[in-house]
């Protein structure tokens, strides 16, 4: 009697592979408080570091007196730039080709800049000692506005760059100018504008915001003077890059540097760069021969670590009278703060901002971005987005709405008329990007049908007709195209290292597996979803697949997790490594079944002899054979490594719609409805996708409605605590409605495009568009974010709509 063979669909279900809403493997430890974050790490003999920071935004350091601090019992060292000078570590290179002060060298350039460090037995002594360090400053004039920075007689901010007429990205035209970067074809764009009957323009400021992850930044640096080995536990989204940089800076061979990113409490771009605190803790550990811990507090995190955005943008569209866009021109003044520390691929000082032609078929386009120094903290990172894509999408979506209002064309209709059509893919944009796939029109119609768009517009018209209505109603509609998965090494590198990513899979003799990756999860659920890809590729239940990341001594080299690159790049590396294993497994199975490879069919979890379901070998059978008695001529074992260099970016897209009701008395905006349709290609874990979208929408809501980093004229950051910096709680967060279409990426091994950042990129202009739309009937084409009650009330007053 032959054994009953379990049906293929049941076996497939038991794998919990691609497409299954598998519960997150990470949650059990997080919800029980069993995570292991950097601040949980305690090493024997560990000392604590605190940082003395500048109270002023611009000034010359006259004198630093360490004596009182050093006299406090338990203080081991107080270090300033002068102490780092002999090591040549008082300045460090940035990812953007500039240098940044590790500790302020003669001058401070922004409030809260690092001036000195103290190392002490415990955190309390360190704080007391930091307060006891006396620093005398001579105040210098402060430059906050990037336009002011470019005036001929503006104060010189970066005296260290005196005489440098060119930087990493070409000529510098002014002492506070960093670069001017162009993309597209200006002559073609000018020609399109010259011939076009309709032209619109709009100035907008995308305010400076901060990614503000729940866990602030920090590290534990531990140098073993006997072995000459440096281990650093660090809050990093890119541990391998950190190791390379640390090796370059410290002179410790890369093989003796171990960087570990343990559990990371959110990154959102804030944990990509190298901060002075890390460098100082490492130096202190090397100097003192003891582990040194540095954990910044919330005020330090918001005030001094990498901000995002701060783009002053001028957009122009040229169009026909029926709303067909003919040309796009964009000029940006980018406030980079005191040092150019953007984290972008080396060749792109404005990131991928030139995706700013969006979802539209625009024949001629040009953009120019001018980077400028000011007396603010450095940064300019991708806050839950691919490099500057958020700014790009915001720009084009605002401009399309401005054009629609000018021509009195419905905001859905103008998008229909300009979308890249399905048959145009792969589509090469005027900026030279090749959009891999998309299908925008049906997605738009799906959203409009779901919310009964005509009924919403009718309700809005009725509301506008009633002068006594207590609320204004606005409808925001956005169609965004992301560009993620950086990136093809021919275009993208960080410090010369191509932006590939990697995976190493080992199948154990008993058929379970471990996968090690060059990425690092910060809440994305890699341990869950990566295993699902392997489960489907290799027929092993995801439950028995371990995923490890973040430890450079065990993981293969990878560029890390940011810019929605994990699934597009590392996810592809997983599939490709699995396919190498699959190919070897087929040889072994053929040997075991005594047939040729071509006689085998793969079905879910097994190779079977074509035409005879009873003759098969499962992947577990093959694994045992691989270790027990592999076929002659074949290496034992069953493992593979793959470094995946993507042929192109991926281009997720979505259609978002938001309905707001604005209280005309208080300026408060209520999000009545938010409908988000995302297309991220193949969906690996729908539940995790929904969670990612909820998170991204919530952060987008925060940016659009409340996040701001206001500076006064002296360069003081006025809101650097969570009392003022808006992180919404469940109470403020709107209810989200999510939907999807699936347009797989044609070049990705499993067709996946990445999703975590789409909701952030797409939702911010949607909230903004909804608020602006509430004022459209009085001729308003644009309002800058954030739409706090106070600011919206000012707009209501300005347009005689307040009651």
């Amino acid at each position, binding site marked *: 009697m032959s054994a009953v063979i379990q049906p293929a669909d049941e076996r497939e279900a038991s794998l919990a592979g691609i497409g299954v809403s598998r519960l997150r493997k990470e949650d059990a430890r997080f919800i029980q408080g069993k995570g292991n974050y950097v601040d949980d790490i305690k090493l024997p003999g560990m000392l604590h570091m605190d940082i003395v920071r500048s109270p002023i935004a611009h000034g010359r350091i006259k004198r630093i007196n360490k004596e009182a601090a050093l006299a406090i019992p338990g203080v081991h060292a107080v270090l300033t730039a002068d102490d780092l000078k002999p090591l040549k570590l008082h300045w460090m290179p940035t990812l953007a080709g500039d240098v940044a002060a590790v500790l302020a060298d003669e001058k401070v350039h922004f409030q809260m800049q690092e001036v000195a460090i103290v190392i002490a037995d415990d955190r309390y002594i360190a704080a007391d000692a930091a307060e006891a360090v006396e620093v005398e400053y001579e105040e210098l004039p402060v430059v906050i506005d990037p336009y002011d920075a470019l005036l001929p007689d503006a104060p010189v901010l970066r005296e260290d760059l005196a005489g440098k007429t060119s930087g990493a990205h070409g000529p510098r035209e002014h002492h506070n100018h960093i670069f001017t970067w162009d993309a597209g074809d200006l002559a073609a764009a000018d020609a399109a504008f010259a011939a076009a009957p309709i032209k619109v323009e709009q100035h907008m400021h995308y305010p400076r915001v901060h990614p503000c992850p729940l866990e602030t930044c920090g590290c534990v640096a531990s140098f073993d003077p006997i072995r000459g080995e440096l281990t650093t536990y660090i809050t990093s989204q890119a541990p391998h890059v950190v190791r390379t940089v640390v090796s370059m800076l410290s002179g410790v061979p890369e093989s003796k540097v171990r960087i570990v990113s343990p559990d990371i409490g959110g990154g959102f771009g804030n944990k990509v760069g190298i901060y002075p605190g890390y460098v100082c803790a490492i130096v202190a550990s090397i100097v003192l021969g003891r582990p040194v811990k540095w954990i910044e507090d*919330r005020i330090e995190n918001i005030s001094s670590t990498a901000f995002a955005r701060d783009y002053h943008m001028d957009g122009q569209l040229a169009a026909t009278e029926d709303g067909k866009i003919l040309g796009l021109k964009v000029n940006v003044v980018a406030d980079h703060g005191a040092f150019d520390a953007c984290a972008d691929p080396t060749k792109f000082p404005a990131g991928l901002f030139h995706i700013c032609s969006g979802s539209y078929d625009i024949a001629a386009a040009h953009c120019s971005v001018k980077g400028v120094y000011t007396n603010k903290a450095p940064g300019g990172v991708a806050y839950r987005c691919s490099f500057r894509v958020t700014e790009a999408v915001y720009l084009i979506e605002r401009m399309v709405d401005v054009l629609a209002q000018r021509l009195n064309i419905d905001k859905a209709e103008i998008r229909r008329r300009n979308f890249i059509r399905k048959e145009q893919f792969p589509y090469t944009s005027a900026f030279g990007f090749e959009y891999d796939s998309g299908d925008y029109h049906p997605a738009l119609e799906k959203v409009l049908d779901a919310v009964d768009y005509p009924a919403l517009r009718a309700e809005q018209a009725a509301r506008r007709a009633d002068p006594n209505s207590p609320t204004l109603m606005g409808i925001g509609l956005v169609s965004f195209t992301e560009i993620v998965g950086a990136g093809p090494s021919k275009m993208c590198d960080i410090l010369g290292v191509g932006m590939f990513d990697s995976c190493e899979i080992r199948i154990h003799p008993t058929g379970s597996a471990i996968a090690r990756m060059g990425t690092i999860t910060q809440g994305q659920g890699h341990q869950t979803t990566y295993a699902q890809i392997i489960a489907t590729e290799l027929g092993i239940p995801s439950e028995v697949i371990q995923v490890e990341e973040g430890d450079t001594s065990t993981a293969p080299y990878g560029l890390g997790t940011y810019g929605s690159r994990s699934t597009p790049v590392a996810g592809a590396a997983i599939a490709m490594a699995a396919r190498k294993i699959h190919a070897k497994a087929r040889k072994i199975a053929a040997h075991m079944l005594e047939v040729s490879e071509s006689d085998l069919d793969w079905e879910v979890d097994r190779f079977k002899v074509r035409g005879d379901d009873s003759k098969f070998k499962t992947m577990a059978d093959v694994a045992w054979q691989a270790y027990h008695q592999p076929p002659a001529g074949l290496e034992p074992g069953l493992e593979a490594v793959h470094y995946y260099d993507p042929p192109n970016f991926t281009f997720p897209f979505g259609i978002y719609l938001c309905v707001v009701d604005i209280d005309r008395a208080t300026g408060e905006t209520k999000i009545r409805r938010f409908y988000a349709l995302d297309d991220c290609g193949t969906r690996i874990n729908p539940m995790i996708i929904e969670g990612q979208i909820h998170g991204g929408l919530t952060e987008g809501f925060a940016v659009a409605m409340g996040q701001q980093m206001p500076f006064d004229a002296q360069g003081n950051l006025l809101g650097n605590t969570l009392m003022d910096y808006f992180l919404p709680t469940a109470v403020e967060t709107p209810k989200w409605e999510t939907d999807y279409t699936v347009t797989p990426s044609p070049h990705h091994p499993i067709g996946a495009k990445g999703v975590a950042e789409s909701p952030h990129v797409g939702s911010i202009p949607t909230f903004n568009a909804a608020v602006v739309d509430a004022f459209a009937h009085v001729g308003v084409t644009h309002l800058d974010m954030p739409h706090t*009650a106070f600011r919206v009330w000012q707009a209501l007053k300005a347009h005689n709509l307040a009651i």
Partner: protein
Amino acid sequence: MIPPKFDYHAPKSVAEAVALLEQLGSEAKLLAGGHSLLPMMKLRFAQPEHLIDLNRIPELRGICLDGDTVVIGAMTVENELIASEVLRERVPLLGEAARLIADPQVRNRGTIGGDIAHGDPGNDHPALSLVCDAQFVLQGPNGRRTVDAHGFFLGTYMTQLEESEVMVAIRIPSFATHSGWAYEKLKRKTGDWATAGCAVVLRRSGDVVSHIRIGLTNVAPTALRAEAAEQALLGQPFTDENIARAVAAAIAITDPADDLRGDPEYKTAMAGVMVKRALNTAWARSA
């Protein structure tokens, strides 16, 4: 966010706490829920040498009735106000307003007495005390005294509480029948202080307002009782015109600070909106 060194004292009785205050003088601070004091210490804005923790004094907690007066121990936390049946029946405004203070975690620690005694115009209980005709029981070296909420708040962080006194209890007369009440608080988000807030308690006799208290939160250096605004409605019918007069009178006494919540113009206007909304809600409830 690391405070300097301090000594910690945990008295078991009010008398012991008062004795410590006398002995330690101005270098000592009382610790109630700690949600104002501890952040100030972590920022080193406040650097007391001694903390006297009131959390281990059982006599300072709980809500009971003394005749028609509700007596609330000063160390009673916000969530206890919300949960209290006695308050719901006698002074329903208090539990309702407490829901608008901070967030659930803070409400498990933050106390009514700390909120009042701190003298911060952003705190909510000062204005609530004013409209409830509350009295505060204070204990010092010379025994206990009882003072009215009205007149207690002298300036930002300044009250009639003497340096060697501990706030023991808050006494609030039960609301009369036909009372209406409301607390309207405009805030940016959960956990924020008010951009502007207004508390109202009134009584209706037929078509006229026979008793009224209007209190304002965070629109001046102290919580305000808007007496002129009260006069605009007292003994008057509750008409749009009288409401507008009350709103105008309330606005006239505001003196808000400029901060990220808004400029004085906005906050003043919002005080007016809150007054109007609170009056309407309170009147509707008084039927």
